[in-house]
């Protein structure tokens, strides 16, 4: 009996230790994953000269690089110069806002009805089309880049924001995500609504969209995060500097203005942090809906 109790206690203790170790490990991983953000925050309040000393190895390709933990002489000069003396930063910032907003809005305009259509049509053709859609989703941008470029060139929207927005609006991933949300709605709900109204549009608007809203929100939020940081599309389609998003502008900042990199990066990171903070539940719910099987 005593042996059993002792073994039982030992098992409980070992599970406790294992749990604590797992928490510690995960915490450490979290801390390590936050180090870049921490460095960004510290770098934004560090003077330009101090940064050039700390990051000489990175910037010049020779010398040593030190981990930036605490500035010797903290300063907000970088913020002041960036926010008040760099109108270029605002141009690229608002370009990013514009591109992201139009892309996500366009995606919602296209993807929600498309996903609704796929979820409501159960024929072989619909299944085949959805299969093709899924394959397209799996193709990386580099594969479709050339064909995108040719089409954009042919319709004459090269070097405009439309060249970036238009292909992204027809992205397949939000369709896939929202499709799963529509599938998660029980068929009985639709049947119940059919007794009230025979209008498919009303069913979409009053039943489908509200019940699939977590998935729509998740798709929108993931879209914002993705297109806020996009690099390849603007790099390929935008030649005019005035049309660039910040993701192309920040790497072009000169060696003399290293603090700009930190300040700009911190500022453009801020809206994403706020969005995630406010929409993390929607994302988890939306992604959770993807697990629902047909």
């Amino acid at each position, binding site marked *: 009996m005593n042996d059993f109790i002792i073994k039982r206690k030992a098992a409980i203790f070992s599970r406790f230790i294992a749990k604590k170790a797992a928490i510690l490990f995960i915490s450490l991983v979290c801390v390590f994953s936050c180090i870049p953000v921490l460095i960004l925050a510290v770098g934004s309040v560090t003077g330009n000269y101090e940064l050039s000393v700390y990051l000489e190895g990175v910037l010049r390709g020779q010398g040593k690089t030190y981990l930036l933990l605490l500035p010797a002489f903290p300063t907000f000069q970088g913020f002041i110069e960036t*926010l*008040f*003396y*760099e*109108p*270029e*930063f*605002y*141009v*690229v*910032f*608002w370009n990013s*806002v514009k591109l992201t907003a139009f892309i996500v809005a366009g995606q919602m305009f296209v993807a929600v009805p498309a996903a609704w259509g796929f979820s409501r049509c159960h024929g072989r053709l619909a299944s085949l089309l959805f299969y093709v859609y899924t394959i397209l989703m799996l193709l990386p941008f580099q594969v479709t880049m050339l064909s995108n470029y040719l089409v954009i060139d042919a319709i004459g929207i090269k070097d405009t924001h439309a060249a970036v927005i238009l292909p992204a609006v027809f992205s397949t991933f939000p369709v896939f995500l929202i499709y799963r949300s529509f599938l998660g709605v029980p068929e009985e709900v639709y049947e119940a609504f059919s007794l009230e109204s025979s209008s498919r549009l009303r069913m979409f608007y009053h039943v489908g969209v509200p019940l699939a809203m977590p998935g729509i929100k998740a798709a929108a939020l993931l879209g914002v995060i993705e297109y806020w940081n996009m690099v390849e599309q603007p790099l390929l389609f935008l030649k*005019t*500097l*005035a049309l*660039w998003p910040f993701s192309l*502008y920040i790497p072009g900042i000169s060696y003399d203005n290293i603090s700009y990199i930190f300040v700009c990066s911190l500022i453009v990171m*801020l*809206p994403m942090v*706020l*969005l*995630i*903070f*406010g*929409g993390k*539940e*929607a994302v988890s719910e939306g992604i959770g809906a993807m697990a629902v099987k047909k």
Partner: protein
Amino acid sequence: MRRKEEIRRIACKWGSHAVVIFLSVMAVLTLLSRVVDSYVIPQATVCTLEEMRLSYEWKVEGRVRTKGRRALYCQENLRIENVWVQENDIVQKGDLLFTLDRKDLQTKIARMEEEIHKYDLQIADMEHASQMQADPQSFHADQAAEGDSNIPIVTPDQANVAKEENFDMISSSVGAENSNAADIQRLEKKQAQESLQQLYLLREAKGQVCAQFAGGIFTCAISTGSLTSAEPVLIVEDFRQPFQFEGIVGGNGYSYAGADVAGEEDSLAMNESGAGGSLSLAGAGSPNLNMRGNQDFLVEEGLEGTLEMGDGDVVVEGVKISKVAEGEEGTYRVTAELADDSISRTGNAVLRFTKESRRYRKCVPRFAVHEERSGYYVMVVKEEKTVLGIKPVAQYVPVTLIEHNDEYAAVEGNISEDDKIIVDTNKEIKEGKRVRIVEEWS
């Protein structure tokens, strides 16, 4: 569980609001940054290339004077009550020059009258002595008759003895001396009388001395309270005489043309150019560019220039240099005759000479050309694609400086007629930095 839900709901709501607030703040900062940028960005005055001949101007500063001058003398030792003119003043005929102290003048007249009376007495005395030497017997008789007991009575015998011993020797010399002294006294008396007459005239004029002709005061040796002397009180330029320009170049601040004249602001380089007393003036370097003078100009007899007097109210063209003479301490005196009717007064004047270069296709304002170690350059405004759109950006363009004058420089380089060249900025500009064009240079 309910509390957790509440926290999630608040976080979701707060997060959405924070994004909106963040975007609003960024919109405000965008406007602010544009406002700040409009103040911070260098404002430039620009110009375009001009095709022109460069004109050079050299000037000799000096004064227009008359060829003839008159000295005005006054009785000596008269006290000046007031002087109404000074050097370089222009006077008309009848203008009051100075006034004498009338009390002092009256005293001088009285003294002069006494002196003349004294001369009279002395002359009479000498004449009397001379007569006595010429006829002593009658002289003594006369003296006796006059009852002068102090004079010893000489008998005829004694007189004969004296006559025999001394008369031949003394009478002739004493008589001649008395006669000469009397003549001198008469002469001095005459001079005194003349002086007295002049003093009478001055007294009649109430001590006022006026100009007898129109002219300019060249020198004035008197001042209020001073005494007149044998020297002229005034030297007056007579405007009835022909005029001429007299100027001096050279001296301190001037260097010989063979020397490096770089950076000498508004200076002239000068050297002797051989016979004929001519000299060459070299164009000066600019004040900020440290350019080297590159135009020599030969000033020689016969060279024509334009004379300007005053504030340019009198301009005489075609004035020829009549003489170039070496002066003191490396200076040169330039003289130019003036036509009779061209000038009617004296005064400070500038004699200007101009010369034009050949026609150049690329001329820019001189201040648009800058100098560095490797040579000269201009800053050109180019339209460049920037993040803010197509904006004017300063661009460095090296040029070759051919020649320049005070205002323009002829250059050669990779600049076209459409290029906007920066002449002036309110702040320092750098290659590749944005500038704001605020005005065209004219």
